[in-house]
């Protein structure tokens, strides 16, 4: 298409040979991006001057958060643990269920195109659903509280890990798989012994990453009544108690830091060996 509008330019070498140089797409791309930015600015009412003028007001709330309200600490433990539990449970189950889901979505393993398509569509649509929406629907169906949050996290993890996993499965080398078949295994066994070991480190690392993200996400889930530390956050925000919010965030950041460090450790261990 592009080459028709902007035909390639012919370059003649000193020795008489010719070669067609395709026109660079960069100028067009840059133009389109600039236009898109312009339109977006118009649409969203973005004004740089406002940022310059009152950008400092952003820090009003940041400033109000320090020092955090230490007395708040005892209130935080339980919801924080709830949040971790929710994320852990949702992530573990979600990752486990993601394995069969990814199996069916991998076109190099499952030969029926229809199954692959359905599995992928399900994963895609699940991933499209914003977590907050899933959580809200979960609270409607499963009632308020951590269970709904767990379900939302489970679905999100399933969709996210499932997609990455099936992509990894498709990129995995089929060599060993072929060899397993020649050994007399069926496809599921061959998958278990040839493909699964290949994707395992990445799978674990994705799951850990997802767990980490889920802890953070769970902070918002409270807003829709899905339990955990989000409820506390909501409460403190409602009272405009930013020092309390600061305390909650501090604890959350520490938790996230620990989880990140631990999971980084295992990730390195898993992938580093490869």
């Amino acid at each position, binding site marked *: 298409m592009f080459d028709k509008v902007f035909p390639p330019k012919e370059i003649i070498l000193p020795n008489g040979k010719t070669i067609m140089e395709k026109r660079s797409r960069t100028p067009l791309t840059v133009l389109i991006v600039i236009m898109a930015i312009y339109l977006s600015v118009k649409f969203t009412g973005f004004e740089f001057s406002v940022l310059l003028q009152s950008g400092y007001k952003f820090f009003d709330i940041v400033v109000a958060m320090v020092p955090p309200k230490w007395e708040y600490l005892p209130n935080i433990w339980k919801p924080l643990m709830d949040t971790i539990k929710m994320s852990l449970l949702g992530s573990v189950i979600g990752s486990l269920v993601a394995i069969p889901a990814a199996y069916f979505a991998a076109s190099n393993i499952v030969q029926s195109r229809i199954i692959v398509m359905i599995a992928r569509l399900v994963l895609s649509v699940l991933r499209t659903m914003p977590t907050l929406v899933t959580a809200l629907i979960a609270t409607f169906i499963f009632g308020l509280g951590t269970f709904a949050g767990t379900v939302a996290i489970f679905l999100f993890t399933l969709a996210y890990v499932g997609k990455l996993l099936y992509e990894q499965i498709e990129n995995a080398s089929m*060599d060993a798989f*072929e*060899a397993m078949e*020649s*050994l*007399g295994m069926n496809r599921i*066994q061959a998958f278990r012994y*040839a493909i699964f070991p290949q994707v395992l*480190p990445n799978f674990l690392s994705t799951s850990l990453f997802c767990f980490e993200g889920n802890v953070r996400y769970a902070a918002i889930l409270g807003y829709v009544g899905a339990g955990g530390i989000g409820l506390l956050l909501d409460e403190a925000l409602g009272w405009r108690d930013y020092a309390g919010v600061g305390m909650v965030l501090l604890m959350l950041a520490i938790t996230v830091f620990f989880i990140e460090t631990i999971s980084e450790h295992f990730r390195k261990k898993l992938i580093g060996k490869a």
Partner: protein
Amino acid sequence: MIEFINVDKTYGKSVKALQQINLKIEKGEFVAVIGLSGAGKSTLIRCINRMHDITSGSLVVDGIEVGELRGKEIRKFRRRIGMIFQSFHLVTRTTVFKNVLVSFVPELPFWRKVTGIFSKEWKLKALTALDQVGILDKAYVRVDQLSGGQQQRVALARTLAQNPDILLADEPIASLDPVTSKQVMDDFKRINQQMDISVIMNIHHVEVALEYAERIIGVREGQIVYDGPSQEVTDEILDYIYKGRKEGMTAEVYGEGAYV
């Protein structure tokens, strides 16, 4: 004994990979299949253990009509036939030992299949197989830390652990350097002679083929154009087998190698 009777194999609608193959291979033979790239060597070999289905004709292995096997039977049948690949086809990222253990999986009870926990008996068998190809000391090393030659030996051990009657090898030395190739070919020879296992091997290196195999099968455009003892293979015969080879073709043949 392997017997091809009027075997045809067509890929899709039009690619005739094998045409009217008639062939008999006795137990314990060491057969090398040579021919241009695309001649149909791999196809020939892969039909034997039903990795590919034949289109017409009849293929009988030890009295079993291969084409008539179904599902579980195929898998049982394949256990008797070991297969070695050019690029080893090992599970990297795990140990040599585990790669060999894998060959017992189809014989395990369900829970062991799932968990991958093997009993001592199997472990000893696997180690014995490793010993047979002389890399017992590498048993607990990760496969990706081995050289190509060592990896091919692991593949060999995996196949031996299966205790096969027939060994199919699809260019087992194509990605090895000459010295390692020699070691691997020696292994094949030894296995063939000591354990009385038939070896059918695709191979691009004519000299190696002539040196190791007893019998040479020349394939050209899906047909067998030569079949006889390796001592009798002359330059004319080779020319005949590789006939039609032109400059362009050569480039193609080698070109493929380049991507290995």
